[in-house]
């Protein structure tokens, strides 16, 4: 499959009181078109910085992020970012949020908004304001707002970590169901190894700061996956060991 995203020798640091802090050091990897790549790493290793660079919100000190071979210079709707804290506009209704990213002169925008509200199970809530929705519904609204503009790439930065365990699992299944319908290239940052195994084609384990890729795991288990299966559990133990957590159970 053709290469969709190329992270080309990206380097990033921040000035601090104690001098320059290297966060990302010469990072190189590629993501194929339609691939689902999960990135896990110890907390504070620069995962979110990396995601902000990939999504175009932050410029690297050197190196480049290339999408379809073109360096990415800023955010655009080819790739939409979904974060842990969420960013559904509280002053717009569900419908208005879904319409937000669609051009005003697009003929079927109302139809599209309705279709995607239904896709994430928000049919009947189109005229509700976000503060009238539950946490899970809010997440669905955010996913629908991202998908309705037909982005080629989804950047997900711990998208489900603010939800309870049950809702998180439910949202993972929803995401897989939607991705089976329409193919997107997905980059997922997570601290939840099981979530990564459940969703991703490939898992990159990052090292502590200054971060680089410590190891890559191909998941290779056909969907639908059972995280409790022996092969998934073996993979989980391997990844956790890589993260410095040796499990005896």
């Amino acid at each position, binding site marked *: 499959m053709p290469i969709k995203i190329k992270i080309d020798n990206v380097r990033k640091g921040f000035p601090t009181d104690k001098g320059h802090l290297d966060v990302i050091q010469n990072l190189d990897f590629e993501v194929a078109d339609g691939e689902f790549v999960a990135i896990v790493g110890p907390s504070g290793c620069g995962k979110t910085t990396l995601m902000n660079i990939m999504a175009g919100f932050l410029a690297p000190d050197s190196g480049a992020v290339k999408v379809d071979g073109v360096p990415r210079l800023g*955010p655009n709707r080819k790739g939409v*970012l979904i974060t842990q804290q*969420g*960013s559904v*506009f*509280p*002053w717009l209704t569900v419908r208005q949020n879904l319409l*937000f*990213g669609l051009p005003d002169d697009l003929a079927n925008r109302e139809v599209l908004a309705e279709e995607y509200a239904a896709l994430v199970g928000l049919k009947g809530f189109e005229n509700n304001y976000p*503060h009238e929705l539950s946490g899970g519904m809010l997440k669905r609204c955010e996913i629908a707002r991202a998908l309705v503009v037909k982005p080629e790439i989804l950047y997900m930065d711990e998208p489900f970590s603010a939800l309870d365990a049950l809702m998180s699992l439910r949202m993972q299944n929803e995401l897989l169901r939607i991705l089976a319908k329409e193919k997107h290239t997905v980059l997922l940052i997570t601290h939840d190894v099981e979530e990564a195994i459940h969703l991703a084609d490939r898992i990159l384990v990052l090292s502590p700061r200054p971060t680089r890729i410590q190891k890559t795991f191909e998941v290779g288990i056909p969907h639908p996956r059972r995280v409790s299966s022996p092969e998934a559990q073996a993979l989980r133990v391997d990844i956790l060991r890589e993260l410095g957590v040796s499990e005896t159970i």
Partner: protein
Amino acid sequence: MKGLRNSWSSIVVAAVLVATWWLTVIYTNSFIFPTPKTVVEGTLELARDGSLWEHIGSSLMRVASGFGLAVLLAIPLGLWMGRVHGAFVTMNPIFQILRPISPIAWIPISILWFGVGNASAIYLIFIASVFPMIVQTTVGVHTIEKRFLRAANNFDVPRGKFFLQVVLPATLPQIITGMRIGLGVAWLVVVAAEMIALRSGLGYMIMDARNAGNRYDLVVAGMIIIGLIGLLLDGLMRLLENMKIVRWRYAH
């Protein structure tokens, strides 16, 4: 139910205050300080001959003009200063110096510029209410959460849409707060402005009652009416907080 209990206790306290006032006037045999009874009688007298309504009407007209002009200037200016960094660093120091100057200090200059009359009073009200509204609007823009601005940038929408669907609604709760503060000071200042030399308004009514035969019953009546109308105006501004588009701010 809770609201009812709260207003009950307020009524009891107010009744105690009125009773204390009444008894004090009786026991001290004051000739000049009015009792609640004479205040009510004086108010009814003014209401009957119609002059009370004229005074209230003139004061409200001046507040509406001065405050209205201030809103028209402050909100666009505040939004502009909030969005454009250069505008903020240029204008903010100037407003920070002008803001703490009491509107009363502007009286000589407003008389010099606008003469003694309506325009002068309206100018004072404008000056008093414009700065808090500019500041509050600018703060509103500056405190828009970054995650919303980022999301808006992510969808690269045209500037007009970005402004109307993100910046303006995100700032609206702060704009309303600014308008409440602005209207409060506008009402505060109208009375002071009318005490100068105008021939109408509640401020004039108070000064006139004292000058024309020490009618302290009308002085106190004027004060109480000013307080009640102030409360009413704030209540009207609070209705804006019930608009659907700003409910998110107060919902939790």
